[in-house]
């Protein structure tokens, strides 16, 4: 793929020529992260988070491999082995705090990355497969993080595992059997811990594989950009290297600085104190809460409090929680507005920010005990969550009149520079529709 003006790799030294003609890895790197990959020149800092998420994954894998050298996946001694890492292994505390905090930071980076994609319409054609692969990564991350949290074998590990696997028991007929099969017993125990460790070690590498597919799929159409319009000419792009390598390196510096501050100064701020108590099947903690990155979905799970249409409340919650994630897979076919960026979609932009506030509200509710007013708030917030994706966006994409789009990325950049703060355009609304990006797809007449 790539644009016609992309530079071609020319090996400079004899050695590179030798390597390139036998195994063209230098060429691959050049075309994907080097000067051979033209990227829109107007990307803002939100576009740094893809690379940051990738770095977060690598940090998790490296620290995780070291931790696994000292960890013992056995229900009798797992907790002790974690404390052994904290107290006796040289630098063990650093590895563990980096790994635990790193999981949170991985989610922060990925959530910002996802919201970036939602705002600028990066899931729309021709990037649907890119979006779907991203969601697969998100699912893998959630599974991996959940199982990793269980490995500590503290109180929250144990009871979190009990609650989450207990969700499956809500399924009619087969539920209990599935739960027993997942746990390898009737309650979390040694069998559970061992399989979770096995999978926790496996899934990050599966994730890495999907990340490679994700990046591959990105390189076919190239990056989206804040205007959402397609690249038209060489004037719209700059080569990835040195322009975005330099920018990503700066972004990485900021990210790592904040990361280090949390790891070294507030390492337990994002965790639950109960997980420093060894797992005890006979004593249930007062409030069982998952890690913060699951709170919005936990809130949706608990928002269903009454049986409805002969389906028990618990089953509704489970279905809704999974649906809340799975519906994202259908987003490219739900929001069919051909304008990608919300900068040019006045109504969708409002809906986006309402949705953003809604997620924050859900997260807050998910971290609270199941009491009023949190239950009712989470019910209303869940209503908006589903309405946003399943009702509002599909309707908006039919009735909304987008603002006129700029003719090209360069033009948009120029305009922003010459009259900062002026309205996006003085033309008649809708006039820009004619210059819509050639997505190869007209508005579907559904």
């Amino acid at each position, binding site marked *: 793929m790539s644009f016609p003006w992309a530079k071609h790799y020319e090996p400079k030294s004899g050695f590179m020529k030798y390597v390139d003609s036998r195994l063209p890895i230098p060429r691959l790197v050049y075309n994907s992260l080097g000067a051979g990959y033209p990227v829109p020149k107007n990307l803002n800092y939100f576009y740094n988070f893809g690379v940051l998420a990738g770095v977060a994954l690598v940090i998790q894998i490296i620290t995780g491999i070291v931790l696994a050298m000292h960890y013992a996946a056995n229900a009798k001694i797992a907790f002790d082995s974690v404390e052994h890492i904290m107290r006796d292994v040289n630098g063990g505390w650093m590895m563990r705090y980096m790994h635990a905090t790193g999981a949170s930071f991985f989610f922060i980076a990925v959530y910002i990355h996802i919201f970036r994609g939602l705002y600028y319409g990066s899931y729309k054609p021709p990037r649907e497969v890119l979006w779907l692969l991203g969601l697969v990564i998100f699912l893998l991350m959630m599974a991996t993080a959940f199982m990793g949290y269980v490995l500590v074998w503290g109180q929250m590990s144990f009871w979190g595992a009990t609650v989450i696997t207990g969700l499956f028991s809500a399924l009619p007929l087969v539920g209990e059997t599935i739960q027993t099969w997942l746990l390898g017993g009737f309650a979390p125990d040694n069998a559970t811990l061992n399989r979770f460790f096995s999978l926790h070690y496996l899934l990050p590498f599966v994730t890495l594989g999907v990340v490679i597919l994700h990046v591959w799929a990105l390189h076919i159409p190239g990056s989206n950009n804040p205007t959402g319009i397609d690249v038209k000419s060489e004037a719209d792009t700059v080569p990835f290297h040195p322009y975005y390598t330099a920018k990503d390196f700066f972004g990485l510096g900021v990210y790592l*600085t904040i990361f280090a501050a949390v790891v070294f*100064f507030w390492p337990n701020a994002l965790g639950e104190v109960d997980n420093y108590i060894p797992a005890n099947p006979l004593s249930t903690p007062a409030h069982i809460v998952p890690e913060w990155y699951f709170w919005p979905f936990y809130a949706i799970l608990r928002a269903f409090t009454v049986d409805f249409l002969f389906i028990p409340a618990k089953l509704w919650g489970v279905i809704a929680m999974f649906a809340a994630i799975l519906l994202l897979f259908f987003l490219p076919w739900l929001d069919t507005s051909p304008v990608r960026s919300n900068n040019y979609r006045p109504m969708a932009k409002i809906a986006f920010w309402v949705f953003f506030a809604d997620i924050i509200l859900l997260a807050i509710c998910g971290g609270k005990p199941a009491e009023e007013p949190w239950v009712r708030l989470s019910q209303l917030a869940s209503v908006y969550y589903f309405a946003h994706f*399943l009702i509002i966006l599909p309707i908006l994409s039919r009735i909304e009149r987008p603002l006129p789009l700029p003719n090209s990325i360069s033009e948009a950049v120029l305009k922003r520079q010459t009259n900062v703060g002026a309205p996006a355009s003085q033309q008649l609304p809708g006039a820009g529709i004619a210059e819509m990006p050639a997505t190869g797809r007209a508005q579907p007449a559904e």
Partner: protein
Amino acid sequence: MVKLIAAAIGAIFCAALLWGAVQPRDAVVPDLVKKYYQHAEPAGFSFDNPIVGKFDRAQLQRGFQVYKEVCSGCHSLNRVAFRTLTDIGFSAAEVKAIAKQYDIPSLDAAGEPTTRKGLPSDNFYGPYANDDAARAANNNALPPDLSLIGKSREGGANYVHALLIGYKETPPKDWTTPDGLYFNVHFHSLNIAMPPPLNPDQVTYVDGTKATVDQMAKDVAAFLMWTAEPKLEERRRTGVGAVIFLIILTGLAYLSYARVWQSVKAKKTQV
């Protein structure tokens, strides 16, 4: 078609949620625990500052003395090795002497259970052989191992301090504390099975500090923060270095970023 199905599914979820939202809620029973429970006040420790705070060695040693003379009667400290006491200022000889005061279970040459004197490489042991023995001696309540108490309760060292001074002779009129339990406003259920462990001048500090209940509570809380996070100082020291390094690196990265983009930004304004 996709949109119609989606709208139908969305409508069903919303209906189920709204139906739940309009249901009347049970009347809220006034919760006395919530009424009387008090969060721990900050006690003011030398290690409070998350970046530069350090342990006070003299305080840790006093805290160790309180643990040894008072708390160790009921609470174990199983995750702490004697050898690590050198970190709080004891000499190798002192550590050896401390370890020697403990009897560690072992087997003799014939394989019969016996005990031997503790070594610096051993962990604290006792006071009970197992949880059942501990419960039997404490009215069926289990005194938790204190090694991690500084991190396993909301509030950390402030909580331990507050708990130890949070006993009230007489509970409020509408609250009953059963026999064998003690009213404590900082305990999650207000009735704790631990009798007030500290009385004025219960220990005689070698450094001459006056052993008020508050002083002893603060000292032992600091000590238990150290047992929970023995690498706290090393962590913060490493952190200061790492963050300074990263700030400089980020500054340089910014300069090179600005330099690289200079030409693009300039061209944009020229056109």
